[in-house]
Every structure is written in C-alpha cells, then in structure tokens.
C-alpha cells in the first residue's frame, strides 16, 4: 500500500508574501528574452529544413535513365485508404526500345490531393519504387481541378531519383544472356 | 445674451431635462445615463459659479462613484424595464406633486425678481490667499476651502467621517453572507 505523505509547506516569508521579488525576477526573465535570438522563420521567404524521410506530396519518379518507372500495377490505387489515386492502365508503345519487357505503363495517373491523407501507403506498396512522398508540402490551387495532380504534374514534381535495382534492365540483360529467369 | 448666459441656459436645460428624462424613462440603465448627464451639467453650473473644486468633486463623487455603483447594482440585479401600469394612487400623487411644483415655480418667478438688473451684478471674488478667523470668504482657492473645513467646520467634518465609518460598517453587515451560527 502506498502511504500518503502530507508535505508541510514552509510558510512564506514576508518578502515572499508581497510577491515583489518574484515579480522582479519574472521581469528580468522576460527582459533577457528580448535579446535572445528569434526562433521564428520568415516563412514564404525562408523555408524550414525538411528532413530526408519527410512525407510530403506523393509524386511519380523516373529512373536515372529518364524512363517511367510505374508499370500501372494499380496496387497503390487499391491500397490508398481515401481512394485518392486513379490509374488508367495502358500499354508501353512498341517503339520505345529501352523499355522492353515492361508491358504496361499508366496512360493516365491522377492523385486527388483533396483526398490524399499523406499516409505513404502508396510508396510502401509500390513494387517498382515509382511513387515517392517527397519534401514538397505546400500545395495550393484556385479550383478543385487544380488540386488533382495529373501524370505530367506528378512527374514534374517527382523528377528522377537514383535507382538501386534497375530491375527491368537486369531482366533484359538476363534474357539477352539466355537466362529466362 | 453673452457667453456665460448661453452656457447657463445650455447646462440648465441639460440638467433639468436630464432629470426629467430620468424620471420618465422606462429602463433603469437609460435612467442612470440621463442622471449622469444631469449630474455632469450640474457640475458645469458649479464651474459657472466659480467653485471649481465642488464641480470636480461633483463629477468625482456622483458621476465617478455613485452612478457607477448604481449601474453595478442595476446590472447585478438585472433589473429590467418597469412593466405594468402606474397605480392610481401614484398617478394622483404624481399629479399633485406636479401641480405643487408648478405653483411654486410660478410663485418663485413672480417674487424672486428675475431679470432685475440690480441683482445681476456678481461681486468679484477677492483673491485672499491667507485666511484667518471665522469669516470665511468665498474664493476659488482650495486652501480656503481646507481652512474652512478644519477650523469652523471641524466638528461636522469629524461627524461626517464617523458617518462614513458607520455607513461602511453597516454596508458590510448588510451585504455579508449570513453564517448559520450568527442567525441562530
């Protein structure tokens, strides 16, 4: 059993009961604060430092060779909790040689930023590492249409990111060497 | 009609009019506001009579304290406008008092010699700084006022002080929450 201990407080001295010394101390504190540095940012001109793993706006990225990574598997569309992503799958045109073996590509890719909750599931689920939540955080528009990011906008926002795997290149090389798998 | 006359009539109208509106206004807050107008114009009349100290005292005591107290009580008790009809007895007594006031004013106008030019020369105030003795001369100086209070009117002053003390004790007793052991 916990024992309750009643602490006897020391009675206040006369100078403490006037509260004046305490007030003076407080005044000193506030005054010294006047000469300390500012902790605020002048926002639109100065931007805060964004950490690496920040979850900003979801974007589509290209690999270092400038190729579209998304294969429109639609996993992100399925996993997206608020149903913000809509993908219209399409085929990769035959003419693009460097994308051999990639069968599909998004014909249209929309992320509705009015619905997006920045949960990052799409990034997590993407098998191609094509969708990333990057450091952009301020998004605004004058109409609802402007708030729906189309494919071009998504690639523009995403840019290219270094790729560790070159999955499709490896597959092509393997096939070229006669190794199907 | 010179400036002083103009001011006198202006403030006289304001004070009596304010008083009248106070008496007939339905809502207590409006009444208090009209009362303040009346009191401040009376202060202005005191200025016309060259007793500046009393004028300021009038504003300080009446407008600054008494009427704030009134407003405080009106708000505290949340007194709404007066509903219902004025009773017949009230009407009759009101009429009677109106009549008597009217008659008295007429008599006053008749016999007090208003407009008598011989009465209208206000004697100039002598600026006597040092006052001694019992004959208190009217002056604008505060010193004379204090001298009067603390020599000739020493006893009334003490009694007034005692009255204030008694009133304070009385008010505290009246407004204190009654404890059960005191009631028993």
């Amino acid at each position, binding site marked *: 059993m916990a024992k309750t201990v009643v602490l006897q407080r020391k009675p206040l001295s006369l100078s403490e009961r006037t509260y004046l010394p305490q007030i003076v101390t407080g005044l000193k504190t506030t005054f010294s604060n006047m000469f300390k540095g*500012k902790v605020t940012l002048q926002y639109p001109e100065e931007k805060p430092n964004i950490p690496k793993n920040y979850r900003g706006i979801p974007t589509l990225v290209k690999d270092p060779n400038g190729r579209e990574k998304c294969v429109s598997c639609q996993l992100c569309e399925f996993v997206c909790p608020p149903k913000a992503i809509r993908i219209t799958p399409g085929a990769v045109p035959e003419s693009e040689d460097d994308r051999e073996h990639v069968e599909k590509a998004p014909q249209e890719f929309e992320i509705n930023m009015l619905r997006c909750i920045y949960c990052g599931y799409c990034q997590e689920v993407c098998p191609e590492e094509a969708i990333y939540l990057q450091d952009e955080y301020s998004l605004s528009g004058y109409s609802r249409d402007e708030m729906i990011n189309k494919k071009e906008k998504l690639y523009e926002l995403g840019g290219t990111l270094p790729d560790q795997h070159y999955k499709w290149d490896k597959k092509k090389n393997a096939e070229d060497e006669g190794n199907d798998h | 009609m010179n400036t002083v006359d103009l001011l006198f009539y202006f403030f006289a109208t304001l004070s009596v009019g304010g008083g009248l509106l106070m008496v007939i206004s339905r809502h207590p807050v409006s009444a208090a*506001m009209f009362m303040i107008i009346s009191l401040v114009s009376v202060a202005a009349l005191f200025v016309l009579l060259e007793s500046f100290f009393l004028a300021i005292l009038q504003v*300080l005591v009446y407008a600054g*304290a008494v009427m704030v107290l009134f407003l405080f009580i009106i*708000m505290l008790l949340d007194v709404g406008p007066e509903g219902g009809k004025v009773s017949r007895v009230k009407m009759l007594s009101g009429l009677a008092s109106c009549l008597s006031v009217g008659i008295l004013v007429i008599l006053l106008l008749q016999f007090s010699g208003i407009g008598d030019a011989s009465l209208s020369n206000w004697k100039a105030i002598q600026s006597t700084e040092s006052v001694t003795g019992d004959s208190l001369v009217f002056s*604008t*100086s*505060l010193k004379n006022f204090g001298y009067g209070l603390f020599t000739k009117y020493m006893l009334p002053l003490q009694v007034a002080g005692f009255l204030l003390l008694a009133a304070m004790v009385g008010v505290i007793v009246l407004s204190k929450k009654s404890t059960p052991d005191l009631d028993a």
Partner: protein
Amino acid sequence: MFDFEMLFMIGLKVLFALLMIGAVMTMAGYSVLAERKVSAWMQGRVGPNRTVLPLVGYVPFAGKFLKGMGMFQPLADGLKFLFKEEIIPGHVNKFYYNLAPIVALVPALTTMTVLPFGEFFADNGESFPLMLANLEVGILFILAVSSLGVYGIVLAGWSSNSKYPFLGGIRSSAQMISYELAMGLSLLPIFLWVSEPGTGAMGLSLVDIVDSQKQSPWLLLVQPLSALIFLIALFAETNRLPFDMPESETDLVGGFHTEYGGFKFGIFFVAEYAHIVVGSAIFTIVFLGGWHFMPWMSDPWPATWIGSLIGVGWFLAKTIFLIFFFIWIRWTLPRFRYDQVMNLGWTKLLPLALINLIFYVCLVTWLDQPPA
C-alpha cells in the same frame, strides 16, 4: 457681443487641443505597435515587419529599417478598421451600442487637458508650464474625468445584450470602484509632502508637483510605497494585465467588446491605449520628476527654447519607458482571478494605502514642527 480677443484665445486653445489629441492618438497608435513588437521580442518572434508605404520603403537604408520595425503598421491597422464593414448584431441595444465607444474614448482624451508636458522659458528667465489648462485641482480633474471612462465599458457590456460582454461590464464597474479608492489615497501623501507650509505649492496642481522635484529627489524615491500603490491601481484602472478583467480573452472571449467590430472596435482599442499613455504621463509627472533631468541634479540644458524642447523630449522618454513597462508587465505576469482582484484591492491595497497615509501624516507633522 463676442469678444474677438477671447474668440482668438479660444481658437488658439482649440488648436493646441487638436495638436495634443493628435499627439496622444499617435502615441496610442504606436503603443499598439510597441505592444506587438515588444511582445514579439519577448517571445522570440519578429513581430510586424511587412507593411510598407510605396515610396518610403525604397529609401536605401532607412526604408528597410522602418519596414523591419513595422513603422507603417499602425497606418495599415487604422485603415483596416476604417474600411471594414460595420456589423451591428441584431440583438444589441443600438443607441447605447453606438454610444459606448465614444463614451470610452472621450474621457481618455479629456484628461490630457491638464497634463503639463514641459516648460517654456520666457526671455526674462521666467518659466511657464506647457499645458492646456493649469488647474489648481489638476489631479482631481484627472481622477474625476478618467473615472468616467468606465461608462464606455459598462455601456458596451450592457448594450451588447450577450453574456460575456455583460460579465465584462459588471467586472469592470466593480474593479473601477475598488481601485479608485486606493489610487486617491496613494496620492494624498504626495500632496501632503509637496504642499507643506512654506514651500509655496498650493493645492493639487500637477505643475507644483513637478516643480517640487526640481533639483531634489523624485517622489518615487521619497515615497516608494505610494508609487507602488499608485502603479498597481493604475494598472487596474487602465484594465491592463494582470488586471484586465473586463476583456480577459481566456474566460470572456473578448469581454466588453466581444460584439464589436470594425471602426467601433478600433475606437475601444485606441481608447485603451490612450488611457495607458495618459496614465504613464501622470505617473511620470507625479513620481518621476516630469521634465526634470535626474534626481538631485539641476537640468543640464539651457533655459531657452532648446532647453524646453529637450525637456519635453525627456518627459516623453520617461513616458515611453513607462508604456514599455506596462507592456513588459503584461508579458510577465499572468491574469488574476476576479476574486483575487477584489481581494487585492480591498484587503491589501486599501489598508496599505491608509497606513501609508497615516505614516506620512505623522512624518510631515513631525518635520513641520517649529523648532522648540
């Protein structure tokens, strides 16, 4: 009929009055800025630094500095108040609702008629105080008129016809009555001290108070307790934190001006700061030696128009420091609870002021005893 000389005098007075209203209003406007800036500095922020006038902003160095200090912010604020839509809520008592801001502002501006703010040296060496009206009962006038300011708050609270403003109005009236007593009582020993026999001071004139502090200790040093009580009562009378019961944002939304917006709110705002400006000026006059240089020292400036200008500047500097002190206190002390305010006023300050008065009565009597 009308005396032309008198008319001229009246015109001159009106002109001076307008000038002073301009000065006080400007100071009130810039106190708002000071409040925002100082609070920002004390909280590690920058404060208003965006507003800029078209041309002035491009002056190489000064323009940027003025912009950074937010010097144009009061202008922008004023314009905003002017051009905002006037909204009168449907449930208010329209007449008193519109009257209240005026009633709040007028007393604050009227008190400055008896404020001396410097002295003018004539050619023959005589000096005259610079003020609109040298009343013998100056301090009483200030107390009387400034006590009328409470009606603005009470009326605003009552006419808004909603509960938070109403509570603000009630609180304000009770607080005013409570602290006026302590304020008056704290000033009595001052005048007792100043107008002791043989000093030539007569009555309750503010000029005499200032003159008595020439080349002698400031009254702050002579009567620190009176100064303290007066300062606390001043905070309470101007509704500043820690006594801003009538408009405590945390428990009464906005207090008495919850239902106000636009220009009418602006008037309340300016009235509050005008009260602070006038209150600081009074404290400077009574306790900080007015336009005199330093305690025990004679004024180092010459007795010419330059000297009087420096004197006015010195007076302003003291006043501005006090305004800063008001702001400083605001960001240091938390707000009292309402019962604590009443408790402090009636059971602490009032007895203290009485004891202080009795002590100085005894002291002055003892000092004034003719040598046996």
